[in-house]
């Protein structure tokens, strides 16, 4: 069933394609930023690059990957899979979904206005270099108009994401044709992430409004006194749940894909759902662990340490469901399965390094180092991105009615896995040596490890080139997908989306 906006028909598959196309373009752009900054780090000194340019690269990389790649990709996968999984005809409000998507386009242009202005030589417009966290006073006092454009873009992201979350939430609540007990784990994660978005993104809009007010009206909300700390509380109250908004649906993808290619049903379906809900709730109570070095009192830090450690429990429960599901299974190493297995591996390493960071004394020592960079990239690039890859490969026939070339798909996954392991394994070692992050230069002794990390980054880039080639090949030459493209009909896991 399709509903019209003007002359064009919009349905959940079209919404999915739009979101995934945007995610692809912005992911490549953000990835290019990463390649530039990794190339700059090949040698311990800056060479011809300025520190400001380096700062701009990691700022735009972070903003682009989180707001313009990860979120659209997650909503894209959700749009393609959720309606058939709950046997809905379509999303509840496709018009609203379309509006929400088209808000992301000007948002993307605004967020990247500094880069675009820099490339086009627009006077005064330079890439924002204050870090993706936009801490005041740096963000408030910057004379760069691209900061204003960035803030406007983030506000649009907040509005667009809220509308998207509302659309998906309404779809699951109103259009669902299956009983709650039969709702699959992926849909539960999307439901939770959407609900979290409704709470978190308005906070982003409010904090962005504060900075804009300070910059344009000189209100002084965030300058002087405890202003910068106020920003950090507000920002991280939004941003840590954002991490889980980005992590939960990939967890759902892994829970969905693993049993299908292990020839088993997911072990602990209820446990998986409850852990999803628990993560959704607890993740709003941990934000201050990002602020352990801002002078908070020890009792407050201890409380946030405990709540942060508490998140590890439902996360571990999910890990248990995956491992037990695999135990004794008859595993088929398809591309989505290999990506899911690798994602689980990176989840373990990224999760364990995160548990250490929750502990106050360790956090104080490592929070400003590459250890944190390695930790969150092992989770975001290792777990989230690979789980998204698994989802995209698994549901690609649903999205396009075509099949991807399986050999290239596996090669893409393997290259990504090796690239991520090499890059962030090397950065983990650098972090354990407490090398400060966000600095363009470093002692010469760390050059080989940084070079190794750069080699890994190049391998990740090559992997995405293979993905693009496979995508192009499949869209132009790919075989039409059969009704049961993964031959799951006789398997023990239900295959509702392929009916």
């Amino acid at each position: 069933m399709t509903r019209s906006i003007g002359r064009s028909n919009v349905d959940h598959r079209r919404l999915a394609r739009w979101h995934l196309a945007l995610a692809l373009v912005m992911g490549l752009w953000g990835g290019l930023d990463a390649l530039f900054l990794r190339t700059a780090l090949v040698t311990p000194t800056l060479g011809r690059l300025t520190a400001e340019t380096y700062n701009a690269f990691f700022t735009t990389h972070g903003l682009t990957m989180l707001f313009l790649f990860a979120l659209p990709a997650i909503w894209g996968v959700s749009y393609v899979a959720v309606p058939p999984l709950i046997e809905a005809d379509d999303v509840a409000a496709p018009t609203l979904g379309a509006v929400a998507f088209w808000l992301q386009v000007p948002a993307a242009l605004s967020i990247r206005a500094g880069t675009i202005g820099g490339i086009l030589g627009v006077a005064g417009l330079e890439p924002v270099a204050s870090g993706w966290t936009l801490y005041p006073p740096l963000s408030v006092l910057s004379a760069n108009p691209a900061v204003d454009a960035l803030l406007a873009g983030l506000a649009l992201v907040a509005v667009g994401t809220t509308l998207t979350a509302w659309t998906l939430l309404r779809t699951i609540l109103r259009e669902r044709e299956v009983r709650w007990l039969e709702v699959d784990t992926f849909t539960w994660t999307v439901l939770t992430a959407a609900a979290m978005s409704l709470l978190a993104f308005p906070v982003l809009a409010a904090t962005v409004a504060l900075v804009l007010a300070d910059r344009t009206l000189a209100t002084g909300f965030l300058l002087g006194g405890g202003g910068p700390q106020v920003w950090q509380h507000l920002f991280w109250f939004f941003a840590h749940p954002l991490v889980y908004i980005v992590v939960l649906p990939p967890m759902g993808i892994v829970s969905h894909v693993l049993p299908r290619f292990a020839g088993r049903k997911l072990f602990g379906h209820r446990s998986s759902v409850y852990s999803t809900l628990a993560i959704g709730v607890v993740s709003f109570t941990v934000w201050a662990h990002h602020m352990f070095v801002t002078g908070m009192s020890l009792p407050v830090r201890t409380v946030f340490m405990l709540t942060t450690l508490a998140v590890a429990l439902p996360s571990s429960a999910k890990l248990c469901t995956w491992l037990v599901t695999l135990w004794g299974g008859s595993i088929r190493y398809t591309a989505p399965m290999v990506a899911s297995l690798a994602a689980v591996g990176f989840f373990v390493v990224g999760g364990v390094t995160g548990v250490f960071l929750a502990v106050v004394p360790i956090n104080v020592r490592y929070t400003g180092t590459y250890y944190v960079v390695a930790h969150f990239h092992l989770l975001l690039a290792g777990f989230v991105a690979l789980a998204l890859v698994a989802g995209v490969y698994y549901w690609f026939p649903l999205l396009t009615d075509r099949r991807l070339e399986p050999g290239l798909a596996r090669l893409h996954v393997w290259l990504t896995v090796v690239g991520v392991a090499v890059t962030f394994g090397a950065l983990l070692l650098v972090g354990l040596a407490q090398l400060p992050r966000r600095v363009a230069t470093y002692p010469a002794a760390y050059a080989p490890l940084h070079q190794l990390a750069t080699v890994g980054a190049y391998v990740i880039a090559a992997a995405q080139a293979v993905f693009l080639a496979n995508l192009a090949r499949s869209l132009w030459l790919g075989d039409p997908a059969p009704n049961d493209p993964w031959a799951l009909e006789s398997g023990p896991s239900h295959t509702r989306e392929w009916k």
Partner: protein
Amino acid sequence: MTQHPTDAADRTDPIRIVCLVALATSHGLIRLAERYLPEFVVAIGSGPIVAGALVSLGLGVAVAASRHSSDADAGPTSDLAPAAAAVASVLVAAVGLLAWAGAPTLDALLGTPLSALGWLAVGIVLLQAWHVRGPVRDLWPTDTRAAAPPSSAVPARDEASIRRGAVDGRRTRTVVGALGLAAAAVFAAAAVASAGGVRTGFVLVAATGAAVALVGAIALGSAGERTSILTARVLGEGLEGSNRDGESEARRNETTTAAPADAESPLGAVSSAASRLPDRRRWAVIGDALVRVALAGSWPFLILLVVEYRSIGLSIGGLSLAPAAVFGLFVLAEAAGAVVGAVAAPALASRLDRRAVLAVGLAVVSLLPMGLVAAPSNAGIVAVLFALLGCRTAIEPLRPTVGESARVAPVPGPRLPDAVGTAVQVAVVPAPLIGGLLYAVDPIFAFTIATTVGLLGVRELGRAFAFGRP
């Protein structure tokens, strides 16, 4: 002509294409890194003697390893072994490139006492895995190594097929190798130019080479999962065409004419094998070997000549390129010349007297070192000279030390015995070290000696061809 049943499917297999692209690019980047190594050695405070010693070390390790490798090839191997060896060799080469990239600082990280030069030496040793056992080791090498000996037996083919296969396979290897080199040359020029110096530029080339090699290894490993295609052996056949088949067949037919050298010392084996060669064949081999030695003694120092001694930069419009970056463009010209030479080779061999083509070609190659010294400091002229250097691919099939089948060699006689071929490879080993010593005395002296030795070789070749005699 026998057609492999999986050929048609293999050639369009996307994994195979990824493998070929990754490995050909790795080949180019490894060769470019090797070309830039002497300048990097100078940039970190050493001189041409050390650079020459490092290149000699690499050649020596390659000769020793290739002998060991060919011995191993003679024994029984499992189906998995070649694929695993191919992947391992690519991975080891990637580690070697990483050792090069991190050479100046690895001691500080690991607490080792090797020094930057020590790590460069480690990198060179590791990179020989690529040259000796790598899946694309037979691509156009750009340096002075003799072609690797055939290593696998294949079904026999008729003589016309052998000839045609040899020509097609060699041309394919040269063109693919040159294209990989050309891509790497452009990248190296851009890397050195953007980095503002060879120190960072070399690290970028080496690190990128390591990354692409890693991609190649993973692609090879991924292909290995498919039993029907793309084990390293299949990839090798794909790149090498049926040339190996031809060479193997020729080798089987001709080894009967070469007496065994059992129970003899290596030197005695070489001596007796050489003495059994007809005089003209022997002279031809000695002449060609001298040209190889001359080129090996001057080739590593071309970059020092262009960058340090002549300082040949380039300015086009508002773009100014430093000599170290321009060297990458010279290698690009060399790669273009190699393609032209490879394409022209069959026509030259069939329309002209092969002996004259070989003699003139080797004379040109011998004169090029002096030509580079004497040429005006004009990037265009030097690029033409580099292109001429690349054009030597036109005469490569005719060279007496390649071990070519007697059927296509311009000098009559049996196929080159293994002992003599190895002796030629060993003779080339110290040439870079000696060249470095001479270059340290005076670059003009070194390049003059190189040209002199090369012309002596051409003179020996002239004796073999009996020019001017009835």
